[in-house]
């Protein structure tokens, strides 16, 4: 408990360093995604949707993730795809299994843009600490997917308790450039390739502030200051430009990642807490020819909502974490609402194997804090904070994140209002396949790690 808190703080501190913001316009993200789906992509996704039955969810309140709300709605999906979303009058084709959602709610699958499941798995023993290659301040050559342990029990809790269907696994924040992220479908798999979200663009995790300068300053190396952070970053980008402008014949793993950023194919996810630093980072992006897709953690984003809107940068945030480290001192629960008021993009993230189970509640908290200061935000918009907005910032919004015909049938049926503390997922579908059902003890994944152990298959 108390010790656990300290561990958490340490983990958070580490994670905090890693989060970065990447921004990708929703318009061209699909192109970016497809550009990475070429046949010689190494470690390619082998994920295939599991079988499902044509399903009609009827009678529930439907939040489509894109700001729409339908009372007594109907959601149809088949062959892994959403077929239609409408009211009670939407015709249900023959052969569909009806699921009565009366008194219940339907949302798109929850998406966590900031997770370390798999690269900091439980049990949280040193042997599992695979999220920070903290041996050099810039490690764009490492890929988070090479650290992900698919048997992390955390994936199963995120599915069953959190309704999470997609998530981005990031390297930690010890380094200025922590490495490539990987986006996963939240399906159990023997291999990480079996979880990789087909076609999702890569991200590059970057980190501002305290973590890199502490980690390397304490080793007597640069960077040891915030100005050192910027100097190392800028020189690294200058060198990357030289590589990118050349023939790129010689393999250089780090430079390939950086060139991918400069090409606009790899999204920048930038861990950054303080407003003044975020403003500098956005200017560094302009100087060096890239843009930040999302600032992660961003506890002071509310101080620069105007700048974030103008630069089209999302803020991936907790509702109310604050004060655990100096650069988090000014965190306030109204952060999300003030960003919303400023017209900037809000994403609710977890950075936690526990918080990922309650992203819906965290968003509700942020909504309520806004309401108390007079900023009224519709429920349907708030649901977008942990669905479509996350998908946009991960470059996968063309295929998931909202309930729209043709999109992946990533769907959660909640037993009540998802913005209430009293609600839990009842059923979760990934690409139309039922992967969790609270009413079926067997329709619940159990990690290899938990077999034969106390509590195997328990409700958790």
């Amino acid at each position, binding site marked *: 408990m108390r010790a656990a808190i300290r561990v958490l703080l340490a983990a958070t501190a580490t994670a905090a360093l890693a989060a970065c913001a990447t921004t990708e316009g929703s318009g061209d993200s699909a192109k970016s995604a497809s550009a990475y789906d070429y046949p010689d992509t190494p470690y390619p996704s082998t994920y295939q949707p599991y079988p499902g039955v044509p399903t009609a969810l009827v009678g529930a309140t439907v939040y489509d993730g894109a700001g729409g709300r339908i009372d007594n709605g109907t959601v149809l999906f088949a062959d892994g795809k959403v077929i239609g979303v409408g009211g009670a009058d939407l015709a249900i084709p023959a052969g569909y299994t009806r699921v009565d959602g009366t008194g219940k709610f339907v949302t798109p699958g929850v998406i966590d843009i900031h997770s370390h499941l798999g690269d900091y798995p439980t049990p949280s*023993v040193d042997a599992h600490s695979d999220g920070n290659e903290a041996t050099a301040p810039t490690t764009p050559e490492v890929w988070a997917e090479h650290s992900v342990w698919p048997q992390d029990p955390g994936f199963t809790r995120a599915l069953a308790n959190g309704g999470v269907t997609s998530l981005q696994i990031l390297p930690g924040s010890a380094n200025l450039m922590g490495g490539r992220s990987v986006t996963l479908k939240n399906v159990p798999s023997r291999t990480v390739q079996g979880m990789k979200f087909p076609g999702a663009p890569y991200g590059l995790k970057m980190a501002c502030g305290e973590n890199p300068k502490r980690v390397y300053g304490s080793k007597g190396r640069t960077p040891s200051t915030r100005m050192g952070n910027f100097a190392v970053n800028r020189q690294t980008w200058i060198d990357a430009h030289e590589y990118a402008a050349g023939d790129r014949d010689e393999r250089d793993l780090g430079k390939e990642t950086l060139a991918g950023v400069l090409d606009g194919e790899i999204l920048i996810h930038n861990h950054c807490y303080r407003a003044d630093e975020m403003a500098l980072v956005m200017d560094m992006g302009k100087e060096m020819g890239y843009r930040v897709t999302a600032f992660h953690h961003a506890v002071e984003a509310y101080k620069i909502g105007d700048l974030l809107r103008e630069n089209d940068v999302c803020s991936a945030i907790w509702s109310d974490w604050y004060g655990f480290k100096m650069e988090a001192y000014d965190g306030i629960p109204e952060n999300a609402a003030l960003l919303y008021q400023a017209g900037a993009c809000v994403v609710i993230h977890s950075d936690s194997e526990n918080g990922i189970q309650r992203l819906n509640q965290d968003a509700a908290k942020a909504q309520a804090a806004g309401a108390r200061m007079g900023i009224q935000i519709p429920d349907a918009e708030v649901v977008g904070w942990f669905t479509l907005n996350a998908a946009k910032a991960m470059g996968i919004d063309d295929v998931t994140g909202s309930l729209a015909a043709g999109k992946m049938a990533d769907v959660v049926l909640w037993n009540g209002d998802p913005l209430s503390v009293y609600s839990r997922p009842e059923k979760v579908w990934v690409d139309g396949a039922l992967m969790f059902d609270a009413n079926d003890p067997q329709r619940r994944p159990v990690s290899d790690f938990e077999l034969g152990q106390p509590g195997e298959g328990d409700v958790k």
Partner: protein
Amino acid sequence: MIGRTLLAATAALALAAPAAAQDFAITNATVATGDGSAPIENATVVVRGGKVVAAGANVQVPAGVPVSDGSGTWVTPGIFATVTDLGLVDVGAVGESNDTSARNSPFSAALDVATSINHRSQHILVSRAAGITRAAVAPSAASSIFAGQGAMIDLGDDPQALDRARAFQFVELGETGGRLAGGSRTAAHTLLRNALREASRFGEESGLAGGPSRPAEVSTGDDIPIDPRLVESDAERATDVLLTRFDAAALVPVVAGRQPLYVHVERAADIRSVLALRQEFPRLDVVIVGASEGWMVADEIAAAGVPVIADALTDLPARFEQLASTQSNIGRMQDAGVKVAINAAAMEQPRYLAHFAGNLVALSSVPRATGLSWGEALASITSIPAEISGFGGRLGVLKPGAAGDVVVWDGDPLEVSSAPVRVYVDGVEQPLENHQTGLRDRYRDLDESELPKAYDW
């Protein structure tokens, strides 16, 4: 005799009702008394002289007591947060502002947080605004399995934060204890036994007086725990002892059952080992903290009559000692008859207590899961932690004679969208402003057309 002097010196720290306590009544509210019962609609709460005098339906407000209409609001006792580090830390990762642990101190059990509570800590202010009015404050173990002595505090806006100094000793006996003891649980248990043996011997030789382990019903000054560290002037110790004289003295009340021993363990087997301690040290007044696998030994815990301050939503095998953790843990333990409070240390911030309690209510509608009723959930963050802390009937509950710790909420207090609108401690209405509300107000808009934001305060 030195003990007597100390008692007098610390008497001022007792539960003192502030002079500014107001008489007030709140009517037409949904009142939840915190005793485990269901909320009562259209109910009334009356506070006079800093104490609750009535709470419930059909309550007549005495003449002369100012009445406010509580329509649309909920009224509860103040939340009792246990276990916390409130008042001990400004910024967790800024070492010089963090007094939770002392890795390089020569002392362990002797450490006493009462000297270090900062009642103006932002975390106290933020927690107060979230409806927390009382807290158990514990140090973290760092140089030994013994973290030191915790205190009970109120979160009122006055310098008298201490309700009870040296209220409990905190010890680590699971994975953390094993690491701190030199590398194994075995070492931790050996260290504990040796320490209690040394303390027992020390206590006998010093002739330390007896006394209750929990505060007396009426605070007279005599009920303040003595500080046994100062009883003897002799600083010499035998050469084969491991504890400093101060540490040994601090453990005398523990081994004598006069100071509760909070034991952090998670694994079912570790819980059993803790319960078995009383075969060797029959007077130990044990409280188990953590207990992720408590549900597996719930009947044994209940039979031993040992209360538990349990992690509510821990459901991952973060450590090998937590393999069987589940959110149903508290519900299952309660069903077995264990007295269980929600552990405030097992969440990012104590202000999440109400939401964690709400999550346990949510489990009641999840097939195969075991949750709490709404009333039980509120009790797990109000009356039950107060009882475990030795303040049963006096804190964490709205009933005649209890402290006037009252929170008025804008909705269901366990719901994530709700927040307090008024908070009283000992009948005194509390300010709810803090660093966060200042930032909120300053950045309500980003207009700097006339002056920089720095002038907006």
